[in-house]
C-alpha cells in the first residue's frame, strides 16, 4: 500500500531524512519511533505529498504522493491536529465528509465512535487538547481509508482513550487498512503494532517485528527470583545472582541461555516463591539501535 525507497529530504544544511526505505502492507500496523527531530513528521509529510522529497521514490496505493488517487486512499492525522475554533465538532466533520464525497449525516456516528457525541454541537474552541485529537481521529476514519498516516495520534489522550484508540486501529487493520503511526511513547505501541521502525537523525536504524528486533539486538534478559528471607542468601549463591533486597535475587542472561537458567531455577524447588522473566524493554532496544547507528 505504501512503499518508500531511499527517500532523502534536506532543509538547507539539515538532513531531515536520509535514504529511508520503508513499506507498509495492507492490514499492517507499523510504529515509527524516534526522538524529537528524528524526521518522523517529515517522512509523513513527504508520504502525503505535502512536502516533496529531495530524492528517492514514494508510491501510495500505486500513485505518486499528493496525486488525487493517493489522496483519496489516504487519511492523515497531523501532529497537534487543529481545527477552526468557530465551528462545532459536527460541522467540522460534516465539512470533511463532504470534501470526501460522503453525506454530512455520517458525522454523528463518527463522533460517537471517538466518544465525542456529548460535545458534538459545541464549538471546537471550547474543546480540550484530547477532544481535538479525537476530532482529528474522527476525520481520519472517514470513508474506509486504505492507508492511514497518524502523527503522534495518542498525545493528549488519557490511558482509557488510548486503549479505545488502539482498539479502533485493530479493527481497521483487520479490514485491510495499512497504518503508519508515529509515537515516542514506546510502551504503548509494544503490543499494539505489527512492526517497529526506528528513525534516528533521519536514518532508519531498525525495521522489524519486536521479537526479531529483540533477537537481533541480543540484549540480556533479566530474571527476577523471589525467595524467602531464610533462603535468599543460599539462592543468590547457587544461581550466582545479585541479591537486591531481603527476598529478591536478580540475574541477567543472554537470549540463548534463558531456558537453561530457568531450569537451574526450577531445580531449587521449595527454596523460591516465584520467578519473573523480563525481556529487554522497547526503551532498551530503542537506545541500542539508536546508539549502534551513531557508531
Amino acid at each position, binding site marked *: 500500500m505504501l512503499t518508500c525507497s531511499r527517500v532523502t529530504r534536506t532543509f538547507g544544511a539539515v538532513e531531515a531524512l536520509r535514504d529511508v526505505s520503508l513499506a507498509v502492507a495492507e492490514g499492517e500496523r507499523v510504529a515509527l519511533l524516534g526522538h524529537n527531530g528524528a524526521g518522523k513528521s517529515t517522512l509523513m509529510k513527504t508520504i502525503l505529498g505535502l512536502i516533496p522529497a529531495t530524492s528517492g521514490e514514494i508510491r501510495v496505493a500505486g500513485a505518486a504522493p499528493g496525486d488525487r488517487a493517493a489522496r483519496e486512499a489516504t487519511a492523515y492525522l497531523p501532529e497537534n491536529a487543529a481545527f477552526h475554533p468557530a*465551528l462545532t465538532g459536527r460541522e467540522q466533520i460534516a*465539512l470533511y465528509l463532504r470534501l470526501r464525497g460522503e453525506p454530512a449525516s455520517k458525522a454523528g456516528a463518527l463522533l460517537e465512535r471517538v466518544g465525542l457525541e456529548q460535545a458534538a454541537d459545541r464549538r471546537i474552541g471550547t474543546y480540550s487538547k484530547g477532544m481535538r485529537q479525537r476530532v482529528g481521529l474522527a*476525520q481520519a476514519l472517514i470513508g474506509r481509508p486504505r492507508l492511514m498516516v497518524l502523527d503522534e495520534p495518542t498525545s493528549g489522550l488519557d490511558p482509557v482513550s488510548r486503549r479505545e484508540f488502539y482498539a479502533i486501529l485493530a479493527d481497521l487493520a483487520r479490514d485491510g487498512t495499512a497504518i503508519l503511526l508515529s509515537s515516542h511513547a514506546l510502551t504503548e505501541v509494544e503490543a499494539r503494532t505489527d512492526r517497529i521502525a526506528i528513525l534516528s537523525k533521519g536514518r532508519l536504524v531498525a525495521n522489524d517485528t519486536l521479537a526479531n528486533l529483540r533477537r537481533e539486538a541480543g540484549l540480556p534478559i533479566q530474571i527476577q527470583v523471589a525467595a524467602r528471607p531464610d533462603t535468599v542468601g543460599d539462592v543468590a549463591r547457587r544461581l550466582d545472582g545479585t541479591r537486591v533486597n531481603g527476598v529478591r535475587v536478580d540475574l541477567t542472561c543472554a537470549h540463548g541461555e534463558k531456558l537453561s537458567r530457568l531450569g537451574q531455577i526450577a531445580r531449587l524447588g521449595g527454596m523460591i516463591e516465584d520467578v519473573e522473566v523480563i525481556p529487554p524493554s522497547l526503551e532498551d532496544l530503542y537506545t541500542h539501535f539508536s546508539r549502534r547507528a551513531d557508531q
Partner: protein
Amino acid sequence: MTRVMAGAGSEIRIAMRNRWVAIAVAMMALFALVLSAAGSAPTGQIGADKLSVTVASLTSLAVYLVPLLALLISFDAVAGEIERGTLPLILTYPVSRGEILAGKFLAHLAVLGIALLTGYGVAALAAFAFDPGAAAGMHALVRLLLSSLLLGAAFLGAGYAVSAVSRRPGAAAGAAIGLWLVFVVLYDLGLLAAVIADGGGPFTTRVFPWLLLANPADAFRLYNLAASEAAGAAAGVAGAAQTIPPALALSSLLVWAAGGFALALLAFRRVRP
C-alpha cells in the same frame, strides 16, 4: 462543485460566527443612512430623480467601502489557516487548491452581497420615501449593486493573494491596508498631481483615461458615473468619464475580478504547508 459548496457553506458559518456579516451589514447600512440623511435636501435644480442622486453618492461611498470590506474579509483566508495549523490537513484531502479558494470566494462574495443589499436597500427606501418618482433610478441602483460585487470580487482576490504571500495574519492585515491605500487613495492622488502638472497636455487626454481604467476602483467609479444621469452633477472625474465608454470600464472590472482570483490561486499554489 459539491466540494466547493461544502467549503463555502462552512466559510459562511465562520463569517457569521466571527461577526463579519454583522459588521459588514452594519457598516453599509449606517453609511447608507448617513448619506440619505445628508442628501435629503430638495434636488429640483439638478432635474434628476432622487434615487439617481442617491446612487451617485453611494458610488463615491462604495469606492472606499467595498474594497475595504472585501480586504477585511479576505486577508485572513490563507494566513489564518497557516497560523492555526489547519492547512496541512485540508491539503491532504482530495480537493484542489482552486476548489478550496473558490469555496472561500463564494462565501465571502455572499457576505459582501448581503451587506451591499442591506446598505443600498436602506438608501433606496429612503429615496422612495422622499421622491415617488425615484423608480426612474432603479436601473442605476441595480448597475451599482452588480458593479459593486465585481469590485468586491477583485479585492477579495487581491486579499487572498496578499494573505498567501504574507503567510502571517498580522503581516497580511498590514499588506491589505497598504493595498487599500494604494488603490483607493494614493493612486488617485498621484493621477491628480500628474494631471495638474500636465496642464491639459497629452498626458491628460491620452494616458490619463487608460490609467483610470487600469485601477478597479476608478473603473468602478467611471462605469457608474458614465452611466448615470447625475454624473455631471456629482463627478470629479466627469471629464474622463465622458471619453471612456461604460462598457470598457465594465470590462476592466470583469478582468480585475477574474484576474484577482487568478492571482490569488497563483499565490496559494506556491504556499508550502
